């Protein structure tokens, strides 16, 4: 127990990220099921409008910040150091700090479901209710007097610190801890996409931090950043939020693209087609992701020039994405394909992401977008991209790397059941939403009347949502069953080309008994140009120093939620306690003997 609380081992932190994020994924999923149950038929009355607002806000916030990002982070943690032939990340304790801040931030946000009585309100009354993009000036104290929005803006600031700390850590890890001979253009595609993602994280998160700080000052200290009576414009929030929000979309999708770029070559027994182009497309997406934010704001009326520019940039960014899709298809073409569950999910990713990408291009046209804004069409799009895209990609990664992380293979039979249920379920759940939206049903309205003519489609969508839930249940059964009865994985169950497959599963605490020297991009494969590398010996020839654990990252992390409780409860002394804990943790951490 203590060894897990103080761990600085990237593999253990990766597992902590996985199980924590998966728990939040289940919570976000339950919220989605309640939403779909409410909308299963017209004039639904399962929940009130107020509860419904909290459900869709927390569903979106949870899935983006507490499920998808940290599930990606679990692979950054577990896999990236292994892929580059490193013994750990550059800053192991900072890594632990990121995890604890994420966990505490997530608990802080979700505590809002239960702590209503502390704020003289009922349970299920004070959870955030302003939507996951929390538009000003609805979020001002005048219009949202309760602590709901406070939980949201404070929780997101805590989570931002976790992402930023991890961002610096992984940038340095990938740039500086590569094994000898692993030049940048020999770095596996997943690690490359991780690097691009981290650059997006460290540049995008400060922007939302500023937006949230303004909101915090407006709500607690009476400033007027988003108050139009004072001459301000609530549109400022939209600009700042989407300046963050669009890079965030790529923060969510690039890791999944990286995973797919590993899974497809392994199961097609072919090198990734156009590796260089895939890498450069990823970098290009990273840059272009900064130039498209106002396509979320066409309905604001920014004027024809702004609309045209953002319309053009949005259509352009589909190009590097399309390039990647053709590269993946070309990787499969003529390959010696093995239809594993991981490959099913990877191919499912490509297919679903194409649909999401195409509906995305339709939003790029302002006249079309004006019809689609705030309707279920947008909900359909975001779910094809983030569920059909990111979640499918993440499950490809889970089935692919689970044996590496646990030493046992997940059941392929249950895996196929999981895939097909999820694939059919998601299309049933999200495809009708395109039609529901085009027929005029607005998003975020807690019920609808039968005259709208969308009742059957909504019922279909709800059935799909429950099919997805069933598929996730099958997955849970699979991981529980695998724990005891799963087939032993050995070092390399798939015949992978990259370094993580050269060591035991799960890897020893020091990862590589001897740091490998890398001579090419596919070190473990025999190609016409080279022989496969020799795997490191099972026992280290010389003793390896492994850094011990540390309590201080967790202590420092604990300071942040305490600090956040100060404004929430209007208790000044809590602010001093929070800062003292944070500073104390940092000082103990800085002066602790810790040899990496």
């Amino acid at each position, binding site marked *: 127990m203590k060894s897990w609380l103080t761990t600085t081992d990237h593999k253990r932190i990766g597992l902590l990220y996985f199980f924590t994020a998966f728990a939040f994924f289940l919570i976000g999923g339950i919220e989605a099921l309640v939403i779909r149950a409410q909308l299963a038929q017209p004039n639904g009355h399962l929940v009130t409008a107020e509860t419904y607002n909290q459900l869709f806000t927390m569903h979106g916030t949870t899935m983006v910040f507490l499920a998808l990002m940290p599930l990606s982070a679990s692979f950054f943690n577990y896999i990236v150091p292994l892929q580059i032939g490193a013994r750990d990340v*550059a*800053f192991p304790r900072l890594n632990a700090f990121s995890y604890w801040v994420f966990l505490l931030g997530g608990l802080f946000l979700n505590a809002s479901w239960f702590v209503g009585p502390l704020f003289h309100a009922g349970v299920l009354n004070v959870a955030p209710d302003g939507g996951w993009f929390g538009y000003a000036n609805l979020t001002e104290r005048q219009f949202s007097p309760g602590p709901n929005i406070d939980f949201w803006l404070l929780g997101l600031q805590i989570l931002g610190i976790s992402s*930023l700390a991890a*961002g*610096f*850590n992984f*940038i*340095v890890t990938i*740039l*500086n*801890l*590569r094994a000898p001979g*692993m030049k940048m253009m020999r770095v596996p595609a997943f690690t490359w996409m991780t690097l691009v993602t981290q650059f997006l994280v*460290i*540049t*995008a*998160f*400060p*922007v939302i*931090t*500023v*937006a949230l*700080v*303004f909101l915090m*000052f407006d709500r607690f*200290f*009476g*400033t*007027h*950043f988003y108050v139009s*009576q*004072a*001459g*301000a414009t609530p549109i*400022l929030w939209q600009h*700042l939020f989407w*300046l963050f929000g669009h890079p965030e979309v790529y923060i969510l999708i690039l890791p999944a693209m990286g995973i797919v770029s590993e899974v497809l070559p392994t199961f097609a027994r072919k090198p990734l087609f156009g590796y260089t182009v895939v890498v450069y497309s990823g970098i290009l997406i990273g840059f272009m992701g900064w130039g498209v934010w106002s396509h979320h704001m066409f309905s604001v009326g920014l004027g024809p020039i702004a609309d045209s520019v953002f319309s053009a940039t949005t259509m352009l960014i589909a190009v590097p994405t399309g390039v990647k899709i053709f590269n993946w298809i070309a990787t499969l073409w003529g390959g010696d394909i093995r239809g594993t569950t991981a490959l099913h999910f990877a191919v499912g990713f490509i297919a679903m992401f194409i649909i999401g990408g195409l509906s995305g291009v339709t939003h790029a046209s302002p006249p079309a977008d004006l019809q689609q804004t705030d309707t279920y069409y947008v909900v359909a799009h975001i779910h094809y991209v983030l569920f059909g895209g990111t979640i499918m990609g993440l499950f490809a990664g889970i089935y692919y790397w689970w044996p590496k992380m646990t030493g046992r293979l997940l059941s392929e039979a249950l895996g196929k059941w999981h895939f097909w249920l999820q694939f059919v379920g998601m299309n049933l759940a999200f495809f009708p939403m395109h039609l529901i939206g085009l027929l005029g049903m607005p998003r975020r309205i807690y019920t609808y009347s039968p005259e709208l003519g969308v009742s059957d489609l909504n019922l279909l969508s709800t059935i799909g949502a429950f099919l997805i839930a069933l598929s996730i249940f099958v997955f849970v059964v699979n991981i529980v069953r695998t724990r005891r009865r799963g087939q032993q994985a050995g070092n390399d169950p798939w015949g992978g080309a990259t370094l993580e497959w050269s060591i035991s599963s799960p890897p020893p605490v020091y990862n590589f008994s001897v740091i490998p020297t890398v001579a090419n991009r596919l070190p473990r494969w025999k190609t016409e140009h080279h022989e496969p590398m020799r795997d490191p010996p099972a026992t280290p020839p010389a003793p390896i120093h492994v850094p011990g654990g540390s309590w201080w990252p967790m202590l420092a992390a604990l300071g942040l939620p305490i600090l956040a409780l100060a404004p929430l409860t209007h208790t000044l002394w809590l602010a001093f306690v929070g800062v003292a804990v944070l500073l104390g943790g940092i*000082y103990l951490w800085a002066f602790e003997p810790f040899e*990496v």
Partner: protein
Amino acid sequence: MTHAAVAHSAAAHHTSLGLDNRKMAFWAFIGSECLLFTSLISTYLVYKGRSVVGPYPHEILNIPFTSVSTFDLLMSSLMMVLALAAVQRGDMKWGKIWLFCTALLGLVFLGGQVIEFTEFVHKGLTLQTNLFGCTFFVLTGTHGAHVTVGVLWLLTLWVRALQGKLTSANAMTVEITGLYWHFVDVVWIVIFTVVYLIQ
């Protein structure tokens, strides 16, 4: 950087790019901070001239006073350079002196900010008064918070040096502190120009 320091850092950790891990992380952090301050300064500029009630910037900003503060902060950067040079050549006596001077000038700057803020409040400009008040105080306050962190950091190094625990072997730590300090200084130059000089 002296040859001794280069040799030390290279011997301590082999890195793929030959750049110290902490230093690289710090450059990334500074890049991230640039976006933070860009967002704050942009907001100041977007809201410039949109306050519906006074006091307005030209009625209240005291350029001569703030020029002195700015000069003070610039000089603190000079002290920082001298501190790093002293530590790198192993001259801990001057290392301690310059580190303390850097922190002291930082404290003087913060004192100047306290006087400035107090004066503005007396003249009727608070966080709540108008958009100028909101954007001005949050922008310069965020910068002041960064200076405060820097002063704490410098004083920590100074105390470690007094205890004999900071030596030329820790030159990289001082260099990274310097990176932060110079960055905070540069941000102030931008703020001084954008907020005070170009009204």
